[in-house]
Each structure stands twice: as structure tokens, then as C-alpha cells.
């Protein structure tokens, strides 16, 4: 299985085949079975570097822990407090870090295409940990992995992606992965944030959450992203929560086995109420644990181990 993996980089889910996604999910299944306190030596002698130009709680620490659990050395670069403030260019920063002996570069950046640029100029393997609104492949993978673990399959399920699709890398990666694995995807949010052209992608476009909720097996609640928006895209948080917030009231009109996902961080009371976020349908914290398994699997695959 691992021997079937040929890619040097993971830049997005768009270019992966259903089979390749399956390889990652199956490898993650194995990782999830391991004792969380055990450390292996499979990646001993390798170095995994985080190159983060954007804030991160989950992804950065998850990759670091995943690397260390496999015995790799880690390096953690964040742009604040670095020579980026002295004007050092992106590629120079990456090359200088790579020169310390890095095998895998995990990069998060505000500019789409940044991991692609590194893949062109570096010798190391590059993993996209989020490039602006473009893709966040490991998040897409862990979301799909969580769905598979709960529902036993992905094919034939109806998955609703709720919120600011336009600016969401999580949405794009999920759309690619879910469609490839045969799920039906509905995107739903304010019409200023959910462009009609999304239909061309093979997803259903909706603007009324209450309308589509009863049809969903899974919903993924995207955070309303204040830092990626310009003004004029929606009038207020209150209105957003009113139209698209997942509340206990809406829960009562949903399918009894509805699975609720959200990439962190969540705005409690906006995209989701505490009652739902902490309730029995929510897999939000489990997603984080699954993220570790996915990232361990990915590091092993890219290192050919």
C-alpha cells in the first residue's frame, strides 16, 4: 500500500486520485490504532520543518507532534519574530531553513501557490498546510477520515459545507476529496460568499440552511473568517448566526444521526452554539485526534517509510 505511493509533495487534493486518497486514509487507520504515548523510530534521522507564515494552533502543533511520534527531528519556524521583518524574501527563508538539513517542509502561507513555488525551488518534500483560500489538504483528509470512521463510507453520503465558501481552503479541499470519493456535496451560505459558479464543480449551491439541513448526513461548519474578508460581504455576525448558525433548535429538525464537523477554531455562538459543539453529534475534538493520525500517515508516505 505504502509502496504504491509515488508523490513527492502534497500540494492539494485536486490532483489526487480516489485511490491515492484511499491509501492515505488506510495508512491513517493504522496510525490511529497506535498507543498515543508510544514513539517509533520510523522517521529517525529525518527532519520535518514547519514553515508557518500565518497563525495556527492545531495544524502546526499536530505536524510537530506527528513528526516526533515517528522519531523525526522537528524545526518550528513562525514568521513573527523572524528575519522576515528584516525584509528576507519567502524563497530565501525557505532555502535557508532547508539548508539546515530538512527532508519535509510543511508550509502555511497567506498566498495561494506558495507551496507550489517552494516545490519548484527546494529539494525537500513540500506539504501544503494551507495556502490562502486555495487548499488545506490535510484538513480535507482528516474531515473525510472522520466521516469514514463514523459512517463506514463516504460514497453516497450528503455532506453540507456551511458558511464562507469563497474564502475557505477547507471548503475547497473538502469539495475535491468528497466528490472524488462519490459523496454528494451541498454548499450553503450567504450569496455574497457562495458564488453561483460553484455549480460548475458538481456541487449543489443553496442559500437556505433550513431547506437543506434535513437532507444532510454530515455538516461541516466553516468559520466566518473576519481576517479574509473585505467589508460589504455580510451585514453582521448576528445576522449570520441567525441564518446559518447551527443551533439546538436546528438540531431537532436534522437527521437523528447527523454528524457535525468543524475545522477549528470555532466562534461559539456564531457558526455553532455551545450546546451543539459539545453535544453527542459533534466530532469536533475527534477531528483533532484524527488530524494527528492523518499527518503521521502522510509523513510516512512522503518519506517512503
Amino acid at each position, binding site marked *: 500500500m505504502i509502496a504504491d505511493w509515488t508523490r513527492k509533495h502534497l500540494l492539494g487534493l485536486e490532483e489526487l486520485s480516489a485511490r491515492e486518497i484511499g491509501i492515505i486514509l488506510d495508512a491513517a487507520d493504522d496510525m490511529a490504532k497506535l498507543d498515543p504515548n508510544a514513539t517509533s523510530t520510523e522517521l529517525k534521522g529525518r527532519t520535518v520543518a514547519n514553515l508557518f507564515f500565518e497563525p495556527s494552533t492545531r495544524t502546526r502543533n499536530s505536524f510537530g507532534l506527528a513528526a516526533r511520534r515517528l522519531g523525526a527531528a522537528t524545526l518550528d519556524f513562525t514568521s513573527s519574530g523572524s528575519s522576515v521583518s528584516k525584509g528576507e524574501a519567502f*524563497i530565501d527563508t525557505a532555502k535557508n531553513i532547508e539548508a539546515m538539513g530538512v527532508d519535509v517542509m510543511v508550509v502555511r*502561507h497567506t*498566498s*495561494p*501557490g506558495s507551496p507550489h*513555488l517552494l516545490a519548484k*525551488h527546494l529539494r525537500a518534500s513540500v506539504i501544503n498546510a494551507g495556502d490562502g483560500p*486555495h*487548499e488545506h489538504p490535510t484538513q480535507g483528509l482528516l474531515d473525510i477520515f472522520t466521516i469514514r470512521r463514523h459512517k463506514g463510507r463516504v460514497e453516497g453520503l450528503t455532506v453540507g459545507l456551511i458558511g464562507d465558501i469563497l474564502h475557505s481552503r477547507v471548503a475547497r479541499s473538502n469539495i475535491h476529496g468528497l466528490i472524488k470519493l462519490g459523496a454528494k456535496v451541498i454548499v450553503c451560505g450567504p450569496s455574497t460568499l457562495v458564488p453561483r459558479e460553484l455549480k460548475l464543480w458538481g456541487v449543489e449551491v443553496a442559500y437556505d440552511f433550513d431547506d437543506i439541513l434535513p437532507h444532510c448526513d454530515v455538516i461541516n461548519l466553516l468559520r466566518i473568517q473576519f481576517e479574509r474578508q473585505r467589508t460589504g460581504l455580510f451585514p453582521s455576525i448576528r445576522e449570520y448566526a441567525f441564518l446559518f448558525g447551527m443551533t439546538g433548535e436546528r438540531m431537532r429538525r436534522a437527521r437523528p444521526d447527523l454528524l457535525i464537523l468543524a475545522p477549528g477554531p470555532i466562534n461559539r455562538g456564531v457558526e455553532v452554539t455551545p450546546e451543539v459543539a459539545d453535544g453527542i453529534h459533534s466530532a469536533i475534538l475527534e477531528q483533532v485526534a484524527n488530524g494527528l493520525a492523518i499527518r503521521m500517515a502522510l509523513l510516512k508516505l512522503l518519506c517512503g517509510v
Partner: protein
Amino acid sequence: MTLLRITNGRIIDPAQNIDRTDDLWIQGDLVLGIGSRPDLTASQTLNATGKIVCPGLIDMHVHLREPGREEDETILTGTRAAIAGGITSVACMPNTEPPIDSQADAEFMRMQATRAGFANVFPIGTISKNREGKELAEIGGLVAGGAVAFTDDGSPVVSSEIMRRALEYTQMFDKAVLSHCEDLELTRGGVMHEGFESLKLGLRGMPAAAEEIMVFRDIALAEMTGGRLHILHVSTAGSVELIRSAKQRGVRVTGEACTHHCCLTDASLRTYDSNYKMSPPLRTPKDVDAVLEGLRNGTLEVIATDHAPHSREKKTREFDQTPNGIIGLETLLPVCVVELIEKKRLSWPQLIEKLTINPAKVLSIDRQRGSLHTGKIADVTIIDPQAEWKIDVEQFQSKSRNCPWHGQTVRGRASAVLVGGIVKLNDGQLINA
């Protein structure tokens, strides 16, 4: 006085409706005539068998970067690049640092070009002082300094009042206003065409409407004032249609297509390669088809490159932080041959017309240039339409390397170029003074 004979070439001079194999005679720096002239003895002969002989090509949309951005290009390197590309005259854009907004600035450009000794440079002056769009520049002074047209290119003229006054004021000098049409509010933060491709790539887009809104506005102002308007780098189907119907109403508007908008689309951005990033951006296949049809039916009468050099370092940054633009002087001919001639979109006379007499008219330099009529200045381009070569940016005369066609095998190349009767390129090699 030297008598130069260019013999046995296919002479294409659209201004005179000439397309036949014949000899071209040049005396000193002027065209003497076309014909076999057994009464004359040439002191120098250039054999143009199998080649096309036409008026020196004019690229009316070129950024030379000097003064201010000499790391990207200089007037010397840019005019060398032009000659290497078969271009004898360039009209250079005024978004330099400082901008070309006074007589002295325009004269500096011409002096630098004369010192370099390669292609002619016709400065385009700014419409507004310092390109700020608030007050008219000293257009009369600029004309005295040699400016042939006016633009704030790089930027649109945001104030409709200023644009109106520019269209009125330039009429005193019978000069055209060249407009970069872009509604900046709609394109703010945009790095490519807004459409399905930008949606997938997660990049902020610049909608077609942003260009069309200003094309409409400028046409309305040209119609109202009777001024001469030229729309730069037309890139959308909607813009082409607006220009077409304005012409039908008798508005004095001309249109320009850039080489890249004749063939490349927004799908090229999928690899996030900054060599496909420019403004206006590459658009959809439907827009490319409309631009090609506009060229074919005369709605767009000029082809230009919008040669926009940027140093290597600037184009190797994160995609949305790279500046817009690609170089074009040295790829103009092969791209036109491969995309327009070989794909039968334009005939050779149609193509040459859009690179000679038509831009000459827009720039008001057609009294002396743009045609091979007796008495015109002897700027001549000799093209080998069949010459096959591989584009290698490292061999370019330009200082910059931002070219999307690097590595491609193409056909069409300038084999010789004369400027004012003097050979500046022969056998594909630049002749240094």
C-alpha cells in the same frame, strides 16, 4: 549618399496596398521607391529572397522602465531588445519614476534613445501631473518635447472630469488619449480574471465588468467631446463589442490587442506561474475568440506587446505579491506567426497593417513612418517567416526574463532591421555602432 537595395523580398506595405515580390530602394535615410530600377546601382544589397519586407514594425505599448527602474530594463537594453525582435519604433509608457509629465522628461527619453542608437523611441506623456489623476499635465510642453500621445497607463484616469478635459485639450495638438480601462474599486486585491478558474485557485479576481465599465465611460466622453480615444490592451468580449458599436456611431475610438490576449487564457494560472500574471489579466477562451474576431473585422486595429519587464527577483515571489506584466519585444513576431498566421486568423498583410500604419496613425507619426512610400523614413523590417527556433530567455537582449513562452519552439524571426536606412540587425545579429 548610400544607395541600398533590398532585393527579391515579398514586399508587404498595407498603407499602399502592396503585396508583391519586388526590390526596395533606400537612399540615405529615406525610401527611394519600390521597383526593379535598372538605372540605379546599389552601393549595398541585402538579399531578401524568401523573406517578407515591410515597414519597420511599431510597438506602441512598451515599458522601458528608465528612469527609475533600471534594474528591470533601460532605454539601451529595451531598444536593443526591440531591434532583436524586428521592431524599429517603440512608444514608451510614462509610468517611470519620475513619470514623463514634462517637456524635459520627454526630451530625456528621446536623447537616451539617440545615445543608445537602436530603435526609435516615441515618448508617451502622462495625462495628469505626476500620474496622480488630479490635474492635467503640461500637454503642450510634452508635445514640444516629442510626446506623441497621452496616457496614465499603469493606472486608469479615475476622475471622469479629468478624462473629459484630456479628450478636449489634446484636440489642440491632434493627439490621442490612450486609456487603461480599469475600475479600481472592483479590481482591488485582484490578481487574475474573476471566474471559475480564480474560484478554484482561491485567488481574488478582476471581473471583466471592471474593464467594460470604463471602456463605456471613455467612449461616452469621446463621443461627447469629439476627442481621439484609444483603448489600450482590450481583453474582454464586452469591451470589443462596445468599441465596435461606438465606431458604427462615428466615435473616434481605436482599439489595441496585446499578443498574450490573442492566445493565452486564465487556465494558464493553474500552476501559479507569475509569467501568466498581468493586468488586464488573461481571460476566458470566449474573450480570446472575441479579441481575435475584433482583430479580424477591424474593431481592433493595433497589435502591441505591453512589454513589461520585471527583474527575476520580483517575479519569483509569492504569486499575489509579484508585479503584473511580461516582456514581449522579442516574442512579438513568433507569437504572431504561430498564433495568428499559422492558425489562419490573420493574413500577413492584415498582421503587418496592425503593426505598422495603424499604430503610426494612432501615434500621429504616420507622416514619416508606418509605410514604404517614397520619401518616408527608411525604417524597414525583414522577416523570415519560416525560421524555426527555440525561445530561450537567457539569450534575450532584455534585462528581464518574465516570459511565458520560454522553451517553446516557434517560427518567425526578424532577419534584418533598418532604422533610418542604417542596418541595425543583420542575419539575426545586432550591429553595434
